[in-house]
């Protein structure tokens, strides 16, 4: 018997496999196809204060081993998420819920985190700092250490739940951003969000995506994500949820060896709806293959 369970800031996960926000809806949709209670946790669809339709379509462009998306945070708003979506997920799912929060101003982050703090079904708050800051010329919060620190401090003041800051990889130095999270009092770091990307329609001689540039994810970004998890593990003491291109149990093990305590699966869910289930089912045999008795032994082991 191997031990697959891990702990994130005191929240126990029966395994480290977590569907990533934006690729798994509010979770309950997947309960039609498999028992989602096998999942370590679920990071639900990113939520803003007000309902958002998101960006115009087309929002999706295929790439080699991945896709570009520009959904634009479509969501029903924090109140509907609290009143409808989370209770609906709770009806079919009893493991930890990670609520993903987005905002276009610090006030919006604070508002949403304050509201979600009252929801006892939510175990961890994941704050997405990749959105543009409307008070700062639309530049992403996550690209400047001082902004990341300010958001982290502000949300930590209004919540008692563990706060993970989800970082964008589109920065010159990911470690300075990670240190800003630590400085601001974050409990953990999720990384990476999508890499900026572009595809053109050769017939139309124009971008495929209506918003032109979007976020690239999928198997192709795994080495980039792994590198950033590696760097952040060395830079800060916070637990890490590794995200980016994870598609197999071997990827989970590799991400953990680089420093992740838990691992999120994103784009792969969109092409294989059973991706998380397949990974969880094959995890014990992969652990045996690499002589791992307890996943906790391998977190960051590659740095030793």
């Amino acid at each position, binding site marked *: 018997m191997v031990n697959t369970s891990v702990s994130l800031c005191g929240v126990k996960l029966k395994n480290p496999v977590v569907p990533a926000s934006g690729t798994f809806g509010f979770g309950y949709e997947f309960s039609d196809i498999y028992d989602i209670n096998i999942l370590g946790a679920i990071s639900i669809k990113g939520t803003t204060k007000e309902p958002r339709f998101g960006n115009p379509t087309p929002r999706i462009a295929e790439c080699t081993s991945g896709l570009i998306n520009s959904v634009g945070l479509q969501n029903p708003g924090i109140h509907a998420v609290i009143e409808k979506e989370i209770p609906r997920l709770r009806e079919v799912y009893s493991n930890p819920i990670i609520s993903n929060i987005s905002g276009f101003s610090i006030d919006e982050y604070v508002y949403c985190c304050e509201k979600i703090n009252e929801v006892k079904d939510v175990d961890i708050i994941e704050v997405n700092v990749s959105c543009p800051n409307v008070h700062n010329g639309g530049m992403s919060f996550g690209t400047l250490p001082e902004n990341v620190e300010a958001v982290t401090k502000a949300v930590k003041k209004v919540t008692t739940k563990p706060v993970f800051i989800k970082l964008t990889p589109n920065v010159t130095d990911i470690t300075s951003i990670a240190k800003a999270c630590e400085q601001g009092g974050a409990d953990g770091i999720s990384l990476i969000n999508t890499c900026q990307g572009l595809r053109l329609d050769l017939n139309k001689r124009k971008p*495929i995506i209506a918003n032109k540039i979007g976020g690239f994810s999928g198997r192709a970004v795994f080495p980039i994500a792994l590198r950033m998890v590696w760097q952040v593990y060395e830079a800060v003491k916070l637990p890490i949820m590794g995200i980016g291109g994870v598609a197999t149990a071997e990827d989970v093990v590799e991400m953990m060896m680089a420093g992740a305590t838990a691992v999120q699966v994103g784009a792969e869910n969109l092409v294989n709806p059973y991706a998380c289930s397949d990974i969880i089912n094959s995890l014990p045999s992969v652990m045996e293959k690499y002589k791992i008795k307890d996943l906790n032994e391998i977190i960051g082991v590659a740095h030793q």
Partner: protein
Amino acid sequence: MKQSYLKVLTNEKLTANVCKMTLMGDVSAIERPGQFVNIAIDGLFLRRPISVCDVEDNVLTIIYKVVGKGTEKMSYMKGGEILDILTGLGNGYFTDLSGEKPLLVGGGVGVPPMYKLCKELIKEGKEPTVILGFNTKSEVFYENEFKALGVTVFVTTVDGSYGIKGFVTDAIKEVGEYTYLYTCGPEPMLKALYNAVTTSGQFSFEERMGCGFGACMGCSCKTKYGNKRICKDGPVLVKEEIIW
């Protein structure tokens, strides 16, 4: 939704760039005409959503147009190949609103879903009339298959090289009385029909999709009944909810 491994039985050209493929296996998740399947293709990241033309027992028929890498690869597939397919996606057409004499209008690769729908309506004792719209004579397919079902079929071509000259809306005058509209085709055609028909109806839409089963919000649209995902809450929308 169900993940099925279906075996290719046949794969043949109907016109220069439209192909028909039949596949065998578990197709039990397909509940209604107008639903679609999402096909994994080796070497490509995203699946390819293709509408269901027909399903009988354990045989699925799809008709697809070669428009890009994915459909091109499909066109080379041979009998015996096994494909990883998500089946039973989308809402599909609801036949209970059709009345006695529904009008079915398909344009180009919007024709295939009309076939299974037509069969279902006939089975329910209704009298469908079918309009099939194409650009030109060489692109016409499935006219005889519809005729074999015993329904009245009008074919239109934009250049007048076959059937009625013009658009599908030009054929409506020939139809006489109808009780309801079911349609699938390019958006300009759907919009023209929306303005031309006097009855209610169901319109099937197309959009670039990510997952095809409602998880990614890649194919959302606004309707009078709220935001909908074309892949999950659609692809069929009722006339009353459509916002152009």
